């Protein structure tokens, strides 16, 4: 077993915690691994020894070995010891459960409602009314004055699960069953994860990206996200196409007539590094390909090919590119 202390092997390594829940879990896991490791070594050695020492030697013993039917003392010993081990493990585990599950949000905590969809993530910042999709921004949390982010987890359709290994254990998003989890990342950076409860065809491409930023940067991001869409003359034609085809049925662009809730909010689309829930880089080329036929990039996702002409595609892409 390789114990990792830094994200050397992977950006989603559970043994590279960067937030209190993940850290606490790692602490418990070391205890569990030590105990199970010790048990393994003991029993493994005894097994190896038995297999070597008591093997049949040709010609030597013709008679059957001594038949031993049992031993009360031995049986008692190897019942009592495991019971004690279980007691220790149980108590340690329950403490960690309480620490993580019963944490209350301190004043100043960021609160975000996460709504799982087939196959993208909706984020609604409770206090500022910001609505965005797929890329979650949170402020870094100083352990001395913690500013954790508390997430309320809901689902619009089937079961999903929010798992960013370096930040916390996973918690499911279940329709009609609100859940909650929290993270307090100690280091600035980008943390990856993905949906971890099978939710349908494109479960595999429902990726998570959590951007942990310094407080001023986060505040600036939040302010920009809360503004309505940038109006742009060069993109007026694209906006017209957007608003007169079916796009508005699913997408919202705040400050315009587009008010659909089925698909991601596009108001600040260009501020995101990826599209298609983290699975495609957000470049004009990719965006155009996506709008032309999403099924080619993410077969089975719920956005249909709109059957747009080349000029319509150009116009809409230009409009999308204006949504900073």
């Amino acid at each position, binding site marked *: 077993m390789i114990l990792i202390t830094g994200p050397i092997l992977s950006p989603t390594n559970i043994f590279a915690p960067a937030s209190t829940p993940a850290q606490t879990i790692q602490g418990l896991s070391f205890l569990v691994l030590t105990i199970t490791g010790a048990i393994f070594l003991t029993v493994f050695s005894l097994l190896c020894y038995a297999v070597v020492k008591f093997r049949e030697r040709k010609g030597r013993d013709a008679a059957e070995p001594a038949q031993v039917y049992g031993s009360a003392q031995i049986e008692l010993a190897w019942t009592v010891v495991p019971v004690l081990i279980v007691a220790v493990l149980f108590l340690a585990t329950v403490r960690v*459960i309480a620490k993580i599950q019963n944490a209350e949000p301190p004043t100043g905590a960021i609160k975000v409602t996460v709504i799982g969809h087939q196959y993208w993530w909706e984020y609604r910042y409770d206090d500022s009314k910001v609505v965005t999709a797929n890329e979650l921004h949170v402020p870094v949390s100083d352990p001395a004055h913690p500013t954790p982010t508390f997430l309320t987890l809901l689902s619009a359709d089937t079961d999903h699960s929010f798992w960013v290994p370096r930040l916390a254990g996973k918690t499911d998003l279940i329709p009609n069953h609100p859940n909650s989890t929290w993270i307090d990342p100690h280091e600035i950076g980008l943390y990856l994860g993905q949906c971890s409860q099978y939710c349908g065809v494109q479960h595999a491409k429902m990726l998570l990206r959590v951007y942990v930023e310094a407080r001023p940067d986060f505040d600036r991001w939040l302010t920009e996200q809360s503004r309505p869409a940038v109006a742009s003359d060069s993109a007026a034609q694209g906006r017209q196409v957007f608003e007169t085809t079916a796009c508005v049925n699913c997408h919202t662009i705040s400050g315009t007539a587009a008010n659909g809730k089925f698909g991601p909010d596009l108001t600040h689309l260009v501020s995101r590094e990826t599209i298609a829930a983290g699975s495609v880089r957000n470049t004009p080329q990719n965006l155009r390909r996506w709008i032309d036929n999403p099924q080619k990039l993410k077969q089975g996702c719920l956005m249909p090919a709109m059957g747009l002409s080349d000029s319509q595609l150009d116009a809409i892409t230009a409009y999308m590119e204006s949504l900073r």
Partner: protein
Amino acid sequence: MSTVPLTYDGAASERRPLGEILHEWVTTVDHKRLGILYILFALTFLVFGGIEATIMRIQLIRPHNDFVSPEVFNRMFTMHGTTMIFFAAMPVLFGFANYLVPLMIGARDMAFPRLNAFSFWMSAFGGFLLYFSLLGGNGLYGAGSAPDVGWFAYAPLTSQTFSLGHSTDYWTLSVLLSGIGSIGTAINIIATVISMRCPGMTLRRMPLLAWLNLTMAGLVVLAISPLTAAQLMLLIDRYLGGHFFDTQAGGSAVIWMHFFWIFGHPEVYVLAIPAFAFASEIIPVFSRKAIFGYPVMVAATLAIGFISMSVWAHHMFTVGMTAASNGFFVLSTMAIAVPTGIKIFNWLATMWGGRIQFRTPMLFCIGFLFQFLIAGLTGIMLSAAPFDWQLSNSYFVVAHFHYVIVGGILFTLFGAFYYWFPKMSGRMYNESLGKLHFWLFVIGFHLTFDFMHIPGLLGMPRRVYTYEPGRGWDLWNLIVTIGALFQGAAIIIFLANLLWSRWHGPAAGSDPWDAWTLEWTTASPPPEYNFAVLPEVKSRRPLWDLKHPEDPDWHYE
């Protein structure tokens, strides 16, 4: 105690028309024939399940692979899980139980032979129905209309809204039918063990295999029914407009999980306990010692059966239960490790001081001991709920349960195949090929399932048809896939060995292993009536008493 040995050599008698032979097999109610039918049926579906696994592993050999589409992949993991659990593992274990339990308790057949046949054909039809789903929908290369909701079919993914067409119904109905068959067999085993033991065989003198199959049957009766109930509810939701799991109408997705896992967890003990039974019969014979601590082995098994009904929500630690509920299930899950560990120690103590013979059945049981130990320990890791919050639904869990089912249960099953093949067929298998099977399979098993833990620890979830490069998962997935090839090769050698030996192996005689339980007193294969005169026993090892009249077991029991 005596039997009239009948050396009935099928090949020497006159050739009968194929139609007559088939008719006999299709209408049989003989427990031995039904046992063999179950086993052949299970082996067929084992191969299908293996093909599904291979397809998945090829798809996952590198990131962004396009060997199969996401739709096909999702059908593959659903079919693989459903096939392996319901149409490979359960039938093969029922098959062995059917064959061995009457023989080992000195009975002539099961208590209800016609119910036995009915149960088999129900299960067989269920398997047929599941695979019939491949025809339909988009056609075979799109994997037809096969279910794609995962083997535990979580709501509301299974509702009409999210699962159009009939693929989910194929899952529901085929499993429902096999469940009815399973309950029938379980009732049969219970009635047989309770009322048909031969004179002198008190419950305390019964072979451990009979005790463990009795426990397994009790679990089946109590645990399969919740799944049946939940599936009826799902059908009502899908076809009669019910709202059991309809979250839009206030229904609960979580209650499906509860109902499913109330079935699902005891189910894995339904699979594991007969595997323990094989180990409990094979290890003593090849260590040349009685099983260590028979009464404790029985008590531990009953404890496992009982506790297993109270651990189910450890599959639901991430669902958002209260801290207190999570705590309860942590405790019950850790508690079940105690009797399970005791059993491992008892098997070890049986080998201790013995004279171990490394024949193929024993090799597989030794492999089982090492691997089941590891599987149990990863289980303890998963039982620590916060650790499970990281590991659940990841490849760590997939590695854990395959370690149990393949490394534990399948290994003892291989042991059982080799151990009882001479009895069932009258012929001895080829020992060198058996050993080759063992070593190839061990290499393949460890390549695949040891390394499979690592992507889980590095954040790879399960049920994904592809994955991103740059997450550190690529190399491990490659190794895992390579291991699958070794296992496939080993299985081919296994099947070839059995097939060839069935017709060309040397005659085995009635007791090739110098063993101690009643089935070894009959001819190989046993005549239809098993025993001409019902045996009378005085201890747990009647043949030991006969072979060692100066030092019989009943002096010590």
